[in-house]
């Protein structure tokens, strides 16, 4: 199971610290989603003993600027996420095959409906269930987050859309172990297997993209084999 973290300077802990803490908690890997962080991934992998995935999360005010960032950053990173939060951004992300994950679709004024979720399913864009507010908000804010989470869950199940789960930790103190997230998910109405699948999905995505970016990959189903010339 993987967790996608906001590493320094985006968050308050460095990628290496996240990896160490996550390894202790039983994660198989962390996805470092930060635009400015450029840690030495190989050294961190070796030091922590778990997988560290090079990812980027695009935070843009509108689709026009997000689009430019997607084109520019896609070749450099294993995983590419787009932060949602407005209807236009959500729509942009689910309609773009080059986007791997749409994060926080329901944050701020963002909303999602069956049309968007169906598009996400067609294009293979993972929709993120953000457990951050469930873990760290209180009162009305949390109630709202839970309501949105429920709506999103019902839509995703109906459309059979791919999804990921994350607690969106900004520091190593915000990290929670997979079993804890599964327990929280159960309390707020998620099936334990759903949360587990959502945490695994990060790893599956990373593996798929690494394979696609490897030299032997030419196109889906077309690969350079190991044959003598």
């Amino acid at each position: 199971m993987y967790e996608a973290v906001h590493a320094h300077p985006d968050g308050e802990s460095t990628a290496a610290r996240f990896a160490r803490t996550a390894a202790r908690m039983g994660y198989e890997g962390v996805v470092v989603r930060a635009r400015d962080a450029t840690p030495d991934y190989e050294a961190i992998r070796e030091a922590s003993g778990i997988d560290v995935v090079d990812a980027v999360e695009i935070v843009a005010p509108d689709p026009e600027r997000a689009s430019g960032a997607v084109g520019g950053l896609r070749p450099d990173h294993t995983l590419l996420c787009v932060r949602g939060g407005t209807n236009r951004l959500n729509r942009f992300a689910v309609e773009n095959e080059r986007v791997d994950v749409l994060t926080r679709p329901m944050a701020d004024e963002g909303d999602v409906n069956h049309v968007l979720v169906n598009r996400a399913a067609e294009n293979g864009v993972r929709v993120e269930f953000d457990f951050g507010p469930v873990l760290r908000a209180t009162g009305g804010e949390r109630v709202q987050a839970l309501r949105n989470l429920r709506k999103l869950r019902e839509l995703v199940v109906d459309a059979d859309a791919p999804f990921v789960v994350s607690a969106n930790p900004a520091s190593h103190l915000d990290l929670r172990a997979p079993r804890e997230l599964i327990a929280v998910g159960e309390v707020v109405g998620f099936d334990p297997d759903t949360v587990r699948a959502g945490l695994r999905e990060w790893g599956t995505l990373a593996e798929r993209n690494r394979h696609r970016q490897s030299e032997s990959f030419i196109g889906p189903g077309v690969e350079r084999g190991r044959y003598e010339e």
Partner: protein
Amino acid sequence: MKHLPKHLRPRWRYLAVGLETWPDADLSRGAFQRAVWYAAGNLLGDAGSADADLRVLQFSFAGGTGEALVRVRRGEVGPARAALACVHEVDGHPVGLHVRGVSGTIRACEERYLGRRAGVPAERRVVFENDRRRGYDRDGNVDVAGPADFTGATELDLESEST
């Protein structure tokens, strides 16, 4: 009051909880207990919180790390785990929290999961992002003091001091 016959006594499970904070935080048992009740009340509601009956039995904390032993009714370990995961702040200090394990007796819980004191962090000068800062080093994990707040780092992130 006369104590209950054995078959009517509640059955308990004991959760070993590891705690972590920034090095400047100071937590007390009372504050942690309040935070646990608050989290349980908010997540599980009054009814669920009473069912789980979370109580902090043991608590030790020093220099940014600590551990606690939390009692919960048998059969409520899942909700208790969820409530504990929602403890993110104690007395205004952000807290990292991890359930190390669950046992049926206090003794087993102590022997298996508690007593791993990490020790008080060593304070030293470090170079982080081309800047000389104060660092609190524990076991390769270094919390670097910044102008406003701390940054969690490890030895890998520090640069060697060039004089």
